[in-house]
């Protein structure tokens, strides 16, 4: 159930494949894997964004990511979860967040992946600052999402 906060770019799909191999080997009891990747876009609210700086609260961030995954594992029958979140200087096209859930069945995998992502956005201490041509600005709110259905 690892979570990690990374200051260097990561390749999300290579991470998923490597983690799955490390945990399950060549086969296993998981039939369903749900993955979400959030990637830095090159525009926001009409302005071209050249890059972004993501700040976090070392220690508190990891603890809350752990809690979020543990809570999801308590609500749904999950076999494994993986969360990776970037911090530091980020450029358009780079992956910011990866959430992966392995389960026997697709319903639990879809629900838990979505719920972990929503909880991460609403509770994990990360703050974004955009770099525009005209200077920098803090991002002050999250875009709307909604949590998974109740199990």
């Amino acid at each position, binding site marked *: 159930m690892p979570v990690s906060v990374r200051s260097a770019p990561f390749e999300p799909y290579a991470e998923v494949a490597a983690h799955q191999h490390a945990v399950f080997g060549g086969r296993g009891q998981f039939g369903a894997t749900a993955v979400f990747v959030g990637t830095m876009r090159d525009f926001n609210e009409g302005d071209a964004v050249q890059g972004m700086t993501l700040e976090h609260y070392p220690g508190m961030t990891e603890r809350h990511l752990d809690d979020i995954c543990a809570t999801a594992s308590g609500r749904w029958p999950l076999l494994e979860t993986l969360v990776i979140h970037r911090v530091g200087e980020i450029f358009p096209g780079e992956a910011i967040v990866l959430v992966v859930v392995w389960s026997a069945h697709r319903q639990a995998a879809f629900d838990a992946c979505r719920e972990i992502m929503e909880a991460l*956005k609403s509770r994990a201490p990360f703050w974004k600052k955009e770099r525009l041509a005209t200077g920098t600005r803090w991002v002050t709110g*999250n875009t709307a999402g909604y949590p998974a259905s109740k199990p």
Partner: protein
Amino acid sequence: MPLITLKLFASLAETHGWRERQRAWVAGIRVIDLWCAETGQSGLPARVLCARNMDYCPPETPVTPGDEIAFFPPVTGGAHAC
């Protein structure tokens, strides 16, 4: 002398010009009292969150010796506008 650690993050750190400092613990002090003492404000703005020892807490939470108290703006994790 028992100490407490104060932290500010993101726009609050920039606005106030510091990220971390230590202060002497005073009996009966609450999280909100630390904010007011350090910023000179009379209350906690609506968009400021606080945490005690890395857990979110209400502003009225009592502070105990050795605590780490943090103030920060609403969180914006996940992908950029995803």
